[in-house]
Structures are given as structure tokens and as C-alpha cells.
């Protein structure tokens, strides 16, 4: 099983083709094949993670050893992302069996996205990362467009154009780094960049382009414009899947680029680089929250909430110490589970009662106790009420900012909890303390899989919060190595 890292990327892509082939034989065989693929992926990711937490697993692709060939590197952080991708993919697939778009083409693209995200998580080569970034992007554009009507196609086109600009800036950044050093392997790059010198304009330009390119993909504030349309225009299961994973893995890539390729010494040598990250973080947290408050549509509000939450992660990258990075990783995992869960719950509520706006949620607890309960629990987790995982992530990031004595950032990070409360409190108040609205358009059947997934997500938000401290200890060696 020494080929496991390569298999982890190959499995979903293989099953993606299998789904299409099986669809030729029997029209309705797409979902079972895709489910088997996602289950295999979970097992493979878990086995690999088990090894990666003991020591870093490296794999040479095609026998061309690094720094010339492509290398796959799996450490604790990559393994976390690979497992997260696999688990969320399986869960959303369970939800989408009845709810989601139900064509074989959809399942094929879905698995392609899983492959792209896994590839981004475990690659050790910066150009390879660009290719997986684009595979992820292409699959995500297609999935967003899988909704009915023109709205999802428009949202997907906007996402495609903005996403392509982001990825192209990333490619230009790779070009600058390559011109400066002549290498593309991440580990080799970090050594070569030190030799070229951190003051070299080529190196600085490369950093700026790579980071801004990824800012587009993470949806940091002024570059977030694609995101609310894409999340709101996509079918419910797709917005859950994309909101949980695409920006999360892009944020992981940001951590990789900043700490593995450019290293913390680069940040210390260039205060402007740190300012760029800190500015993105502060603006995202504040404006994401402000825009979220002014939304009437639930899915748009959740999308702006993501802008604000990823500001927190970028803030942790700017702080750049062990505690903050630990917090960022926990928050990435926690956000994926909670935000994915919230979109699924919103989809469940919309299917059962037709409620899609904040006002429609009035008195929801009397009409749909299960949906309202899960939504409420996930919202509280997102705000950061202990023992939910949202609390642990924010706590570590804030603690890291205090340790680093970057006070303005610390204040914004602490305030972000209140800002989160600002846009979620009005939903809680409507759901639990208002008389039911009369717009009861309860039509479609809610499947067992949909209910189960939403409940599992709500439970996972709490359970992960309790496990987070032990996970933090597991991850500590990896984070220490990142900052070395």
C-alpha cells in the first residue's frame, strides 16, 4: 500500500469515469457507484492520515525524484484536509440522494471535485497545485451551474471569470518564483528563495501574486464578489459541498504557500507581506459581517458569513505563531462542518416548508422542530458558544494574536464573535420566539438521508469541539515544523 498517496487522488477520478460508464449500462446506477467511491475515499484517507500523523509521508510520482519530478507530501495538516474532504463528500452525497441534482453527469463532476481538492491538499509541487486548483475550479463552476434556470448559470459564469483571474494571478506568481529560483518543488523553493534573498523584488512580487490569487479563491473581502452569487445560485447540496470545502482547501493552500514555500523568515524580513495578510483579515471580518446583517435571503447571508469567518483564518496566518495556526486549522475543520451543515439545514427547511428568507423563518420551531433545532445548534456553534468546535478555533486564534501582541488584530478577532452574533441572533430570535408566518408552502418530501445528515452535522459540531484539544496535540509537531 505504499502507493496510497497517489491512489488518494486517483480513486475519485477513477470512480468519476466509472459513474459515467455505469450510467451507460443502467441509468440509475450513478448514485450507488459514487457512494462506493466516496466511501473508499474515506477509508483510504483515514489509513493515510493514520500514517501521516506519525511521520511525514512523501511519494515520488512516476519515478522522477524531487526537485525535478512531482512529489506528494502528506503531513498532519494535509492529512487533516484529505480526511475532511472525504468525509464531507460522503455526507453531502448521502444528503443529495433524494434532494440534489440527480444525474450521472452530476455525480461524475462531484467526484472530480473531490479528486481536485484532495490533490491540492497533498501535492508538494507548486505547479501541480495550480493544476489541481484549476481542476477544483472547473468542477466547482460546473456544479454551481447544475441548478435549474438561468440564475445558477449566471452565477457560475461570474464565478468562472473571477476564479480564472485568481488562478491566473497564482500562475503568474509561480512564474516569478520560477524565474527567480528555477525550481517548482515547494521544499526546494523555500531553500532557493532564501538564497536569492527575501528583499529581491521578484520574490516579493511572487509572494504578492500568489497570495492575492489565493485571496480570490478564499473569498477575502474585496475579492469575494463571486461567492454570494455562487452559493445562493447553486442547488442546496452543491452550496453545502462548495462552501464546506472549496474555500477551506484554498485557505489550506495559503497556509502552505506562506509557511512551507516562503517561510516565517520571509514574513519577518518583509513587514509589508504581513500587513497584506492582516489587512485582508480585518477587512473581511468586518465587512463580511456587516454585509451578512443586511441580507434577507438565508443562503446569501450564510455566504457573507463565510467571508467573515475566513477573515479569521487569514488573520491567524498573519499572526503566524503556533497557537494561532493551530486555531486556524481547527477553525477550518470546524467551519467546514458547521457551514456545510447550515447550508444542508437551510436546504432541508426550504424543502419542507418553502422558507428561504429571514422573515420566513419566523416560528419555525413549531413547524419543523428538527430543522430549527439543528439550524439553531449549528448557529450557536458558529457564534462560538462552548463546547462547540467554533469556540475552540476562535479561542486559539485569539490567544495566538494576544501572544504575538498584535493588538489591533486581537481586538478584531475577539469582536468577530460579537459580529457573528449580530447576524445570527436575528434568525435565532425569529425561529424560536416569534409566531409562525402564514406562508406554509410545505410540499416536497424530506428524506431520511437529509434529516440524518443535518443531525449528524449538528452533533459533529459539538463532538469535534470536545475532541479538538486532543487533535491539537496530534497536530502540534506539524505546526512546529511549519514554523521552523
Amino acid at each position, binding site marked *: 500500500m505504499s502507493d496510497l498517496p497517489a491512489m488518494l487522488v486517483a480513486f475519485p477520478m477513477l470512480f468519476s469515469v466509472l459513474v459515467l460508464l455505469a450510467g451507460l449500462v443502467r441509468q440509475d446506477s450513478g448514485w450507488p457507484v459514487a457512494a462506493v467511491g466516496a466511501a473508499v475515499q474515506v477509508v483510504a484517507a483515514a489509513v493515510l492520515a493514520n500514517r501521516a500523523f506519525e511521520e511525514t509521508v512523501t511519494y515520488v510520482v512516476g519515478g522522477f525524484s524531487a526537485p525535478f519530478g512531482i512529489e506528494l507530501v502528506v503531513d498532519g495538516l494535509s492529512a487533516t484536509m484529505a480526511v475532511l474532504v472525504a468525509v464531507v463528500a460522503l455526507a453531502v452525497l448521502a444528503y443529495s440522494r433524494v434532494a440534489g441534482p440527480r444525474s450521472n453527469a452530476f455525480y461524475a463532476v462531484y467526484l472530480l471535485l473531490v479528486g481536485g481538492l484532495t490533490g491540492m491538499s497533498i501535492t508538494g509541487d507548486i505547479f501541480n497545485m*495550480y493544476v489541481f486548483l484549476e481542476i477544483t475550479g*472547473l468542477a466547482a463552476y460546473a456544479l454551481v451551474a447544475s441548478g435549474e434556470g*438561468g440564475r445558477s448559470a449566471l452565477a457560475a459564469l461570474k464565478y468562472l*471569470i473571477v476564479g480564472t*483571474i485568481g488562478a491566473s494571478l497564482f500562475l503568474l506568481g509561480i512564474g516569478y518564483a520560477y524565474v527567480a529560483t528555477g525550481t517548482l518543488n515547494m521544499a526546494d523553493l523555500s531553500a532557493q528563495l532564501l538564497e536569492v534573498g527575501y528583499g529581491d523584488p521578484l520574490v516579493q512580487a511572487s509572494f504578492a501574486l500568489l497570495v492575492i490569487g489565493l485571496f480570490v479563491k478564499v473569498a477575502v473581502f474585496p475579492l469575494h464578489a463571486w461567492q454570494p452569487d455562487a452559493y445562493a445560485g447553486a442547488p442546496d447540496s452543491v452550496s453545502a459541498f462548495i462552501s464546506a470545502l472549496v474555500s477551506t482547501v484554498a485557505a489550506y493552500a495559503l497556509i502552505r504557500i506562506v509557511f512551507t514555500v516562503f517561510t516565517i523568515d520571509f514574513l519577518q524580513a518583509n513587514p509589508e507581506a504581513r500587513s497584506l495578510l492582516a489587512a485582508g483579515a480585518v477587512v473581511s471580518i468586518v465587512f463580511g459581517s456587516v454585509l451578512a446583517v443586511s441580507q434577507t435571503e438565508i443562503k446569501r447571508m450564510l455566504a457573507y458569513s463565510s467571508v467573515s469567518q475566513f477573515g479569521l483564518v487569514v488573520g491567524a496566518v498573519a499572526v503566524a505563531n503556533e497557537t494561532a495556526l493551530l486555531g486556524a486549522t481547527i477553525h477550518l475543520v470546524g467551519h467546514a462542518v458547521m457551514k456545510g451543515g447550515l447550508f444542508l439545514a437551510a436546504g432541508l427547511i426550504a424543502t419542507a416548508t418553502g422558507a428561504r428568507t429571514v422573515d420566513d423563518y419566523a416560528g419555525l420551531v413549531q413547524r419543523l422542530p428538527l430543522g430549527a433545532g439543528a439550524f439553531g445548534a449549528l448557529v450557536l456553534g458558529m457564534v462560538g458558544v462552548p463546547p462547540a468546535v467554533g469556540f475552540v478555533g476562535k479561542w486559539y486564534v485569539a490567544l495566538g494574536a494576544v501572544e504575538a501582541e498584535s493588538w489591533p488584530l486581537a481586538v478584531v478577532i475577539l469582536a468577530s464573535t460579537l459580529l457573528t452574533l449580530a447576524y445570527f441572533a436575528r434568525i435565532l430570535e425569529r425561529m424560536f420566539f416569534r409566531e409562525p408566518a402564514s406562508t406554509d408552502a410545505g410540499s416536497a418530501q424530506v428524506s431520511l438521508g437529509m434529516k440524518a445528515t443535518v443531525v449528524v452535522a449538528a452533533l459533529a459540531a459539538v463532538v469535534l469541539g470536545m475532541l479538538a484539544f486532543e487533535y491539537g496535540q496530534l497536530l502540534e509537531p506539524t505546526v512546529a515544523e511549519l514554523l521552523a
Partner: protein
Amino acid sequence: MIDLLASRSYFLVAFLLSGIGTYMLIGNGNLIKKVIGMNVFQTGIFLFFIASAFVKGGSPPLLTAPEPYVSPLPHVLILTAIVVGVSLTAVALGLIVRIYDVYGSLDAAEIEVVADE
């Protein structure tokens, strides 16, 4: 900084081309022209990569190792990036066909008016 740009003037050309592409992307209302702008923008970056591999008097290391030799790696990378670019264009055009079917227009401003109703 000036020295760097003087010795590597292709940086400026790549930026200029990408800038023109970006302007087309933003300035044009027509969706198809937006996609063309996106392609021009990408091409600027591709050409930057390829130009970076240029060595005066160099030749590719095919059977022998000439001195000086040209690194073939940027060309290979850009081949991959071009494939990605073609796929992106295909998806974009596919989406535009869908949009045209629904709204009956290719003009971004017109579509926005119809979509908001």
C-alpha cells in the same frame, strides 16, 4: 527595480497584454467578448512564462547537451496551462449558451435587468 525591468522587458509586455485582457473583461458588456478578454489575459501570462525560458544563442537539449541550453520546463508547464485554458473557455461558452437560452440576450446589463425581475 528599473534595472530589473530593463533587462527583462518581457515583464512589461506580459503585464500590458494581461492589462488589455482585463480591460476587455471589465469594459465589455458582451459575454462572448468577456471570454475573449479572459483568454487574452491568460495568454499574456503564458507568453511571460515562455519568454522567461529564452536564452540568447541557446538551443534545446535534445540529443546532446548544448551550451548554453534552453530549459524546456516552462514550455511543458504552459502546455498544461493551455489545456486548462481551453477547458475553461469551453465551460464558459457552455454556460453562455445556457444563459442565452434562458434570457435571450448576450448583453450583461440587459440580462441583469431580466434576471432581477
